[in-house]
């Protein structure tokens, strides 16, 4: 019996029919658990109110309707939230890419005194529980007249996005052979030209991955924007929560709102799904 099993394994790595069935069933079941709440959101968003509140579960809406979506869009501050969210997110991501790319260049391409310390500092920022900082952050921005402003929130987001951006781009830049720099400099490039004409284009995929990751983080944030700004200057996440507390049982429009607010991120993700997974984990795996 043992010998027979051993033979089997020489041909096919430690596999049995039973094991394969078990693996597949487990995978499917768990995938269902993971996806079911998302399906339920879609389902709820498409149902008229009486079906949402019904005690009999409707797995498919009997009378599908888009009313929930239109009532979400027409709700107070929705359009403002959408625009604010875009402005804050794009500002923060653009700034993080520029600042982060330069910092990553310095760390990846130069040996200098204090380099290790800077890397340590970058990593330590990620350890900070955000809420511990919210009181002093609020005070500082208040002093600078940046509360209730999109710029103030973007600044805080920039700070939050930087560690990840620098760390990931550092990995990408370190992967570009230094010989390329040297060859270009022998051909007469200045150092600045090397950065601009050689390293920047080659870091392209890394920039895309970090941009998308940054977009997701900034777009999804709500604690800071909620604390610093009044409702007219908040993003869609804060809008969603505001609506949840104000209209407790209007689940249909709320779920429709949740879908609309997640849409940009989900579309981004599906477009460059492979890149983001690599980018998201690049820093952690190498760290």
């Amino acid at each position, binding site marked *: 019996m043992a010998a027979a099993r*051993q033979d089997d*394994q*020489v041909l*096919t*790595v*430690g*596999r049995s029919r039973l094991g*394969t069935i078990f*693996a*597949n069933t487990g*995978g499917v079941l*768990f*995938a269902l658990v*993971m*996806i079911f*709440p*998302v399906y339920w*959101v879609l389902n709820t968003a498409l149902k008229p109110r009486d079906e949402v509140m019904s*005690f*009999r*579960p409707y797995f498919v809406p009997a009378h599908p309707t888009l009313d929930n979506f239109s009532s979400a869009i027409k709700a107070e501050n929705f359009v403002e939230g959408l625009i604010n969210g875009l402005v804050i997110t794009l500002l923060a991501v653009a700034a993080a890419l520029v*600042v982060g790319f*330069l*910092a990553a260049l*310095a760390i990846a391409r130069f040996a*200098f005194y204090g380099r290790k310390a800077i890397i340590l500092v970058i990593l330590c*920022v*990620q*350890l*900070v*529980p*955000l*809420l*511990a900082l*919210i*009181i*002093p*952050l609020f005070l*500082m921005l208040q002093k600078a007249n940046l509360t209730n402003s999109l710029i103030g929130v973007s*600044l805080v987001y920039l700070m939050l996005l*930087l560690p990840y951006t*620098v760390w990931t781009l550092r990995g990408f830049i370190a992967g570009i052979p230094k010989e390329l720099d040297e060859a270009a*400099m022998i051909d007469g490039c200045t*150092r600045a030209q090397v950065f601009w004409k050689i390293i920047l284009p080659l870091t392209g995929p890394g920039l895309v991955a970090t941009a998308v990751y940054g977009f997701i983080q900034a777009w*999804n*944030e*709500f*604690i800071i924007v909620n*604390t610093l700004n009044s409702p007219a200057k908040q993003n869609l996440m804060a809008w*969603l*929560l505001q609506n*949840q507390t104000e209209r407790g049982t209007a689940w249909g429009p709320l*779920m429709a709102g949740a879908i609309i*607010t*997640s849409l940009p991120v*989900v579309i981004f993700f599906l477009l460059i799904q492979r890149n983001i*997974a690599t980018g*998201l*984990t690049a820093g952690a*795996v190498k760290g």
Partner: protein
Amino acid sequence: MRHGKYPFIIGFLVVPLALYLVFVVGAYLQMFQLSFTDWSGFGGFHYVGFDNFVKLMEDPVFWIALRHNLYILIAMPIVTIAIALFFAFLLNVGGKSRGGTTQGVRGSKAYRIIFFFPQLLALAIVAVIFGRVFGPDRSGMLNGLFPDSWSPWLFLADERWALLCIAVVLIWQQIGFYVVLFSAGMGSIGQEIYEAAALDGATKVTLFFRITLPLLWDTLQVAWVYLGIAAFDLFALVNIMSVNKGGPNNATQVLSYQIYLNAFQNSQAGYASAIGVVLFFLTLTFAALTLRVTRRDAVA
């Protein structure tokens, strides 16, 4: 070649370092300062020495919150890492082997997207969604799925289960990231190692414990630190999902939410800062301990 290096270094690093000094170092210094004051959040304040910390030691809610953080700190990473490891292994090495290379189970690409999907949703949205999943009457998703003869479960409104519900949501949201993280780690383990072991008659279980796990150790360590930090945070979910502000009866009270309540609702910003100081040292200690205890001598 060395000529002209420092202008670049200084120019490239001045902005991030300035931001860091102001927003992180500056903010922490201010938090430490405020923790020694009776500041309410408005107007002036007096220095009160260690009064806030003495009060903290005598505050039963603080201890409840701390205990909840520690429960989640212990349970959540173990469960998350175990499930994520299992599925990452399944997706990478779990399937048949063709042409001598092991493969993931059928449909691993689809799984990867499905598992990762919750990671895209904002915590705000996740919390709102699960408010519906845990709806305490028959219109809630889970209660709707249960047989009619059961009386509806209260979930978040039940003292005994509320914290567990929140932990489940956290695991649901985070697991995809770790499946992808571990998959990436497993992908960098050479196929020939698995092949050699398989030729020697190793089973899948042996492959997992003898090859995958040891070679993945560094990644696990990183995962543990990330998850631990998440366990110290928890603010978003508790803020949105908990019944009656960290209730019922403080059943979902956690430190970060105590900071928020004291600072913005009870007008005790000084006291809230003291909790912030405690949270700061707890997180730091945790991260340092994890990295130290789990450190193994590097092979290379």
